[in-house]
């Protein structure tokens, strides 16, 4: 039944080469844990992407109940946690997943570093990876404010003061970051917009570059 539907579409649009090109590859022996167990370290990049995917999904579903407003944000988060059926599970996925992305990304970076995979000709992909690292840190920083509880407020207040301590331009950066001279309503809307619109767009572009470059250059050879 499914096969028939697929064949019907494939006959008309010839989609098989499209997904073959994306998905159908031999796994090189030195990155295949089935051959050598220690090759599991090559999984961390894919795991980072998997967790990022679940972060995007759980974030989309949280956004149905969240509101970025200083009087209501905390109540909407409380509503998600206490009232919505399995809302605490979805929020928990996003909460724990956020830490997991950072952990997986860091392990991935260690693997790339210690296998020397960043060396020529893959320097540009290392640079893109570092940009992804900064974008993910940006997700963490902006997302931390959104529940609008004490921890969120003071973490952002401290973060803003760190930015403000930069010589000469610090105060300007701080004001631009907060959208105001103190952490408040404008900070919350600003961080929300950055968290759900700007950073995802940047992340998707960078991930596409990251993957296209891997395809063009292949996985680095064995040690």
């Amino acid at each position, binding site marked *: 039944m499914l096969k028939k539907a697929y064949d019907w579409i494939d006959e008309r649009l010839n989609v098989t080469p499209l997904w073959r090109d994306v998905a159908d590859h031999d796994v090189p022996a030195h990155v295949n844990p089935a051959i050598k167990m220690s090759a599991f370290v090559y999984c961390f990049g894919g795991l980072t992407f998997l967790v990022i995917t679940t972060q995007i999904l759980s974030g989309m*579903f949280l956004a*149905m*109940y969240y509101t970025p407003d200083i009087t*209501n944000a905390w109540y*909407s988060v409380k509503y998600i946690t206490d009232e919505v*059926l*399995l809302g605490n*599970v*979805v929020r928990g*996925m996003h909460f724990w997943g956020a830490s997991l992305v950072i952990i997986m990304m860091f392990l991935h970076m260690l693997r790339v570093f210690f296998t020397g995979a960043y060396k020529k000709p893959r320097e540009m992909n290392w640079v893109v990876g570092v940009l992804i690292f900064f974008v993910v840190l940006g997700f963490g920083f902006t997302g931390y404010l959104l529940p609008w509880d004490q921890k969120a407020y003071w973490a952002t207040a401290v973060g803003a003061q760190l930015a403000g301590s930069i010589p000469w331009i610090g105060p300007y950066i701080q004001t631009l970051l907060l959208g105001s001279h103190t952490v408040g309503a404008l900070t919350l809307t600003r961080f929300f917009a950055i968290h759900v619109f700007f950073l995802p767009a940047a992340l998707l572009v960078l991930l596409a570059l990251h993957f296209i470059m891997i395809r063009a250059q292949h996985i680095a050879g064995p040690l």
Partner: protein
Amino acid sequence: MSDFHERASREQQPGLSRRQFLTYALGGTGAFMASLVAVPFVVETFDPIRRGGANAFVNSGHKVSEFNKTLPQLVEFRAHRDDGWNSADIPSRAWVILQEDGSPLAMSPICTHLGCQVNGTLGPDGKPEPSQDGQWWFHCPCHGSKYTVYGIQSPGSPAPRPLDVHKVKVDEAGYLYLGPLQQRNSAGQVIS
């Protein structure tokens, strides 16, 4: 050629081939893990379905004995509404008349045509008085829907059904409590 025949004969063997078994096992495991992620999303999305409408009864502040069987009286009360993380007491109105058997009928003033507030027939002192328009006591200012004192619409009205009525309760002290609204059919019987 022989390879082809060998494969063809293997495919004719009953049961699963190794490749098919592995495909199913991997696909099943993958589907299970994907559903672990997806199920909370679906359940969370469908949360509003399990929430009923407003079910609370609120005290109208009036005793049933204050009403009569001839003309509806206007009752102002505050309907409690839970809206996500907000809850509010919304100022609301109902027209209350006693039916033949003495039970209270609490009608919403919202016209069933397009939702305007219908007017009762009031004297200069703001007290209900008998209609000048035959049996039609409520008049809608928007499109001229007319209703009897029991909220039954006139045959020529654009209103498709009688005025909605509140579920009612009466406590030991005789106070009237107003609950959720219900629709009625043209015979005046509650249908939902």
